């Protein structure tokens, strides 16, 4: 029987119940957003006792289905003040699922603010154990300590920045080798968890019941079809683009298309793009030898393996991983073209428990304010260290790009609903802008990745600079993505799902195998739109409105080089995107 576990930090109690019947078919984002919408007062203070943090593995997570070790984390965001779901790939999720735990709800807050707790979960249930000695520790130290206390477990945790309630803080999960590197990063859920006094969660699945599977043959057949599609598609196959160069293979193509946001979104072209590209990363790995690698996986069972380990000049490990968003946010967006500086900033973000995207966008705004010169990677590193030390400046930066813009009087702040924009310029790629503006998550590329069609030619081709058809394009991507985020499959499977029909069939069949359902493509649309409606309704009750589904004003006014476009999807068009 599948379970729902509740942990209350006010009463220091853990209870486990059977998963309520109405949640039986839900997983991942579908389940976190549904529980948040039902149980969290939309007007609550996100860092107060009435907010909750909900963890949910995907539907197929913990099974042998490929690339399925994803976990969703949900709650009310202290960054956007709306609903949030952030997800990551990690063995933590597989272990939770194999214990039969489909949802974990963290509520309340410690009464004694000096206390910290770790939640231990195993086949016998869950218990809170005091770990106040870990208070104020960042992730490297926290995970090193977990390594001594819980060597057989998978872990998640929050840093000192999370404990301090900074909205830059994400929830950090262990990767396949137990690095603190896989983040449910966006929207500040690490701050929500940290303020509750919960320092970490450790999971051991040994002796557990495994994932309850209704129709094992169907699951097996679906997994086979999906694995076949992933193995054939040029993006996802072994030796394919993701496997050979990592996600940073996108740096050059976005730069050539004039859509790589540069120096705080003041240009779409970065002259240093080549130097920070996925090709340059692969070259550094090959030349430096040692511990560096491409084709790394965040959890066992991933066949795409898009991750990397970036080496120092002497071949020692510097950080895992330098992926596209982090590389861009801390590179092109800051005018920095030195991969070693970028790697150091990624390492600091991983250690301080920070979302690399929000950190990079915030530093871009800080540079605009004159706190550092664009291109000065060393100074950018010291600004990040201010956050790590929780200085007054660090706490301002730790509140994100929008807050930093207000603190220093900067109007060029690339954010929607208070969340910094990722690595695609909306004025050069209009459909992704529709996703940024209208996603209930705030500016989030993963919510509806129209780039596939607008730049990459995957799933059909559309002109990135045109506005026609972008309302529907964004809506369709957002709907399908919401379903994928529920399934537990990594979003990067989508490239093969979109192009190879038997791949999508396989993903559906795998879910049907676990749940005993008969879902078809119609159900993907039904479920995806239901998730989005639930999230939009929460946001409305939280006080967000159509006025929050808008680009920052400067994008309506300033023409972006090299194309000279402003953001020109109209307000009316934006209002149509999620008008189901």
């Amino acid at each position, binding site marked *: 029987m599948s379970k729902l576990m509740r942990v209350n930090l006010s009463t220091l109690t853990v209870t486990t119940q059977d998963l309520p019947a109405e949640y039986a078919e839900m997983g991942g984002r579908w389940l976190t957003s549904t529980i948040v919408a039902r149980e969290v007062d939309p007007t609550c203070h996100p860092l107060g006792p009435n907010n909750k943090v909900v963890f949910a593995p995907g539907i197929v997570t913990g099974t042998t289905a490929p690339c399925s070790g994803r976990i969703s984390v949900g709650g009310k965001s202290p960054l956007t003040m709306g609903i949030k779901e952030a997800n990551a790939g990690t063995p933590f999720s597989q272990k939770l699922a194999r214990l039969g735990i489909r949802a974990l709800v963290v509520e309340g807050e410690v009464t004694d603010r000096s206390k910290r707790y770790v939640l231990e979960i195993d086949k016998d249930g869950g218990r809170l154990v005091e770990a106040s000695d870990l208070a104020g520790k960042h992730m490297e130290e926290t995970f090193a300590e977990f390594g001594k206390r819980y060597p057989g477990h998978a872990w998640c945790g929050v840093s000192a920045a999370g404990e301090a309630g900074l909205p830059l803080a994400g929830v950090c999960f262990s990767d396949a080798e137990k690095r603190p590197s896989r983040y449910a990063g966006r929207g500040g859920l690490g701050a929500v968890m940290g303020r509750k006094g919960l320092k970490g969660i450790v999971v051991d699945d040994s002796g557990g019941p495994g994932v309850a599977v209704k129709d094992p043959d169907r699951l097996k057949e679906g997994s086979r079809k999906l694995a076949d599609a992933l193995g054939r598609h040029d*993006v996802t196959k072994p030796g394919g683009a*993701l496997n050979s160069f990592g*996600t940073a293979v996108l740096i050059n193509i976005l730069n050539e*298309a004039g859509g790589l946001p540069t120096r705080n979104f003041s240009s779409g072209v970065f002259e240093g793009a080549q130097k920070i590209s996925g*090709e340059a990363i692969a*070259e550094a790995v090959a030349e430096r030898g040692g511990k560096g690698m491409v084709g790394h996986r965040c959890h066992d069972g991933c066949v795409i393996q898009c991750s990397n380990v970036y080496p120092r000049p002497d071949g020692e490990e510097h950080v895992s991983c330098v*992926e596209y968003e982090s590389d861009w946010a801390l590179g092109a967006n800051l005018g920095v073209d030195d991969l070693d500086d970028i790697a150091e900033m990624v390492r600091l973000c991983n250690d301080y428990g920070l979302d690399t995207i929000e950190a990079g966008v915030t530093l871009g705004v800080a540079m605009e304010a004159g706190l550092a010169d664009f291109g000065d990677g060393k100074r950018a590193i010291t600004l990040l260290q201010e956050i790590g030390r929780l200085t007054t400046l660090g706490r301002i930066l730790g509140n994100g790009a929008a807050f930093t813009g207000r603190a220093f009087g900067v109007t060029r702040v690339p954010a929607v609903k208070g969340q910094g924009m990722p690595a695609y310029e909306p004025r050069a790629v209009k459909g992704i802008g529709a996703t940024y503006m209208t996603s209930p998550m705030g500016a989030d590329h993963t919510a509806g990745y129209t780039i596939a069609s607008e730049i*990459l*030619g995957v799933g059909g*081709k559309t002109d990135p600079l045109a506005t026609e058809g972008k309302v529907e394009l964004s809506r369709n991507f957002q709907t399908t993505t919401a379903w994928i985020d529920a399934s537990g499959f990594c979003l990067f499977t989508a490239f093969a799902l979109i192009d190879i029909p038997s791949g999508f069939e396989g993903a559906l069949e795998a879910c049907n195998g676990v749940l005993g359902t008969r879902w078809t493509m119609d159900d993907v649309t039904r479920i995806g739109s239901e998730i989005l409606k639930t999230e939009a309704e929460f946001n409305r009750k939280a006080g967000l409105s159509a006025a929050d589904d808008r680009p920052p004003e400067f994008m309506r006014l300033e023409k972006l080089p090299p194309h000279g476009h402003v953001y020109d999807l109209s307000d009316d068009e934006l209002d149509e995107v999620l008008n189901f």
Partner: protein
Amino acid sequence: MVKTGETKVLKVSGPEGGKRLRFLTVTLSLYAGLDRHLSSPARGPLTVEVQQGLRVADVLEGLRVPREEVKVVIVNHRLAGLDHVLADGDRVAVFPTVAGG
């Protein structure tokens, strides 16, 4: 191997061998491993002298880059096709299937 940023000059002519015909100069970047088809790989940009009237496809053929590996062509920051006729000073970028997030 030619490193990032270094320039290499290649000459691509059409069937007439380029006699009495004008040549244009374009820059060409072959990304995400497509440069491995060159006799000496170069992570661009290459400077290529091209006979007037040739298309992107002709240049790639001249350089022995297999057409089936080419997914996206961008000329002067705009998506273009393999049949784009080259003009003097064009900045040409060629990609296999790539993706990420």
